[in-house]
């Protein structure tokens, strides 16, 4: 057992003896065009079954809904007016002026103006309206809540530092679903519960669902990684919004990109998951967002629940002692 929170190398913690670099994504939402090629490529490669009945959800162009057992990439669409852009720009500027301590190697001679208050923040080619599009995915956390609480050992840490479910081991207990602070992993239902109306009959003929009843999530295309291939979503992305590579390189690329955007006055840009001191020890999938994380459906301050597990065990120990004492007292009192 490695440490339960804080910065660490998850692969070494899992006792991998060889030295693969940790792999990860950098999803730059500022250049996402919402084409959903990543969703399609993921479904195709991983043989993921249909999710739902292809109904329209009434949430902009997002009819996928959310990440789940059969949806391992999810493109979020948010439509915002000018006032929200201004707010996002302000909240991003506030983040910069917080003077976050830099993690990792020192900054390249970045072009971030020391004081963004003086920067020209006129949006370059905006816009009293904007689309936010972001391809969400499993975060492959340094401290993965799902992995920590899995009782069977079905979830494991790969040599690439990612988190993968072993389909033949998982017994579908569902603890990981509650353990994930990002709501990513889910237990796959067998699909037969989905009742179709006659109008949607053409979509109702679900092929047989593989791996029903067990937890499923993004594997960062483990089968492709072992063959030295790029994950399907990153390979399919036409704008390089989804980048794949060594985790350290991804974080570095993310930092350079956010500095670039800030220099252009786009102070709404911020990184999500690039800080190894955060509640999950940093994520394997780093994101560049253009608004607060909750706007994209991401938790603003996730914390791996297992970080508090030693304290919980201590409290439970005290409760057990209390119960034993109460029982002893009950019998001694009863005798008197």
């Amino acid at each position, binding site marked *: *057992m490695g440490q*339960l929170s804080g910065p660490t190398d998850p692969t070494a913690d899992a006792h991998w003896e060889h030295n693969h670099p940790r792999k990860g994504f950098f999803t730059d939402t500022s250049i996402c065009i919402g084409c959903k090629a990543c969703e399609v490529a993921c479904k195709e490669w991983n043989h993921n079954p249909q999710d739902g009945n292809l109904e329209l959800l009434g*949430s*902009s162009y*997002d009819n996928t809904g*959310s990440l789940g057992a059969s949806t391992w990439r999810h493109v*979020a669409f948010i439509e915002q*007016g*000018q006032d929200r852009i201004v*707010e996002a720009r302000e909240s991003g500027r506030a983040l910069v002026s917080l*003077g*976050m*301590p830099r993690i990792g190697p020192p900054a390249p001679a970045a072009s971030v103006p020391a004081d963004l208050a003086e920067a020209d923040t006129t949006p370059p080619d905006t816009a*009293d309206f904007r689309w936010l599009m972001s391809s969400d995915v499993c975060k492959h956390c340094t401290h993965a*809540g799902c992995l*920590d*609480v*899995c009782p*069977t*050992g079905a979830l494991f840490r790969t040599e690439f530092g990612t988190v993968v479910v072993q389909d033949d081991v*998982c*017994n579908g207990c569902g*603890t990981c679903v*509650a*353990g*994930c602070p990002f*709501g990513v*992993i*889910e*237990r796959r239902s067998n699909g037969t519960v989905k009742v179709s109306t006659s109008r949607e009959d053409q979509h109702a003929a679900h092929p047989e669902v593989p791996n029903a*009843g067990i937890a499923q999530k993004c594997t960062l295309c483990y089968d492709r990684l072992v063959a030295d291939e790029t994950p399907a979503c990153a390979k399919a992305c036409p704008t390089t919004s989804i980048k794949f590579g060594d985790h350290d390189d991804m974080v570095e690329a993310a930092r350079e990109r956010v500095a670039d955007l800030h220099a252009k006055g786009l102070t709404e840009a911020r*990184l*999500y998951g*690039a*800080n190894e*001191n955060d509640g*999950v020890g940093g994520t394997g999938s780093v994101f560049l967002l253009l608004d*607060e994380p*909750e*706007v994209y*459906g991401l*938790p603003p*301050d*996730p914390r791996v629940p*297992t970080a*508090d*597990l030693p304290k*919980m065990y201590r*409290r*439970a*120990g*005290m*409760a057990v002692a209390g*119960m034993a004492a*109460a*029982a002893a007292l*009950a*019998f001694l*009192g*009863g005798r008197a």
Partner: protein
Amino acid sequence: MTLSEFDSFRPSEPARRRREGGKRGTGRRRDNGDGSREMPMVPEPEFSSYYGRPVVKPAPWGDDVAIYLFLGGVAAGSALLAAGGQLTGRPVLRRNARLGALTAVSAGAVALVKDLGRPERFLHMLRTFKVTSPMSVGSWILSAFSAGAGVAAVAEIDRMSGNRLPLGPLRNVLQAVEGPAGIEAAVFAGPLAAYTAVLLGDTATPTWNAAHEELPFVFVSSACLASAGLAMVTTPVRETGPARNLAVLGVLGDVVAMKVMERRMDPVAAEPLHQGKAGAMLKWSERLAVAGGLGTLLGGRHRIVAAVSGLALLSASALTRFGVFEAGLESARDPRYTIEPQKNRLAARRAAGVTGDAITTGS
């Protein structure tokens, strides 16, 4: 969004429907009163979220798991009462508590297996021992407890049937290990009653996670009063003196731990404990616990009053488990309970000058 410069002359739109209570104004207000915005597709929440969709996923657990929470507690407390009866010479209490423990733990285990996505793989739970997984630790506790409780209860059944179980030479072994088995079950009773609280606390489900410090105390108290209630129902009053004491202690612990828990939790994350179905169940749970406790204290020596009080206590414990369980699931279904406490604690840390541990960074 302003589409044209004349839009500002439109009459203003009526104020939006507010969330119930509407007391938390941490969300952004987009309404600038000039009606110059697009009509929203979804009602505007008080906080930002992605179309009101949940951030975390609720555990895919049905009522089976809540039933197990209750039955596991009953089994644990019963094993303690049985061991006490065994050590202090109360044969009827010992017998009934042992039988109660085995029945409860067996039914609970069946409920657990039934709730798995792949029930046929239930033995995978014992494939490894993982201290970071309360479910794994709990599976081993449950197994160890069941072994002791099973042996002790089978010995009772054999005795009740006049040594008619087809045990052969094993009867002597059974009679020899019966006592130690009862004690072994009692040793694992406390952990069995408390681990489920850790199991719920060690999740990203907002209400459960926020309750992680006090929930073990609530659960062991609930186990005490439920098992004492069962003993008061099944056993004549002359042997249930200790059960009555345990019931009163359990009620005290339950009520106090629950109050402390609610006070120390994040106020937003505690809301589901007071609202809807979960709120109603927890309110009735408290009433029944107090009523059962008073009945035990005042009329516990009367057989009928004792049995009625025992039933009240059992119901109180079941309602506590179902209430806490349901409140947690509810808190996962509404993004507000994930986002607001997290935003508040992040803001509090920043106000205190801690700026290095946020997941969102400017560089």
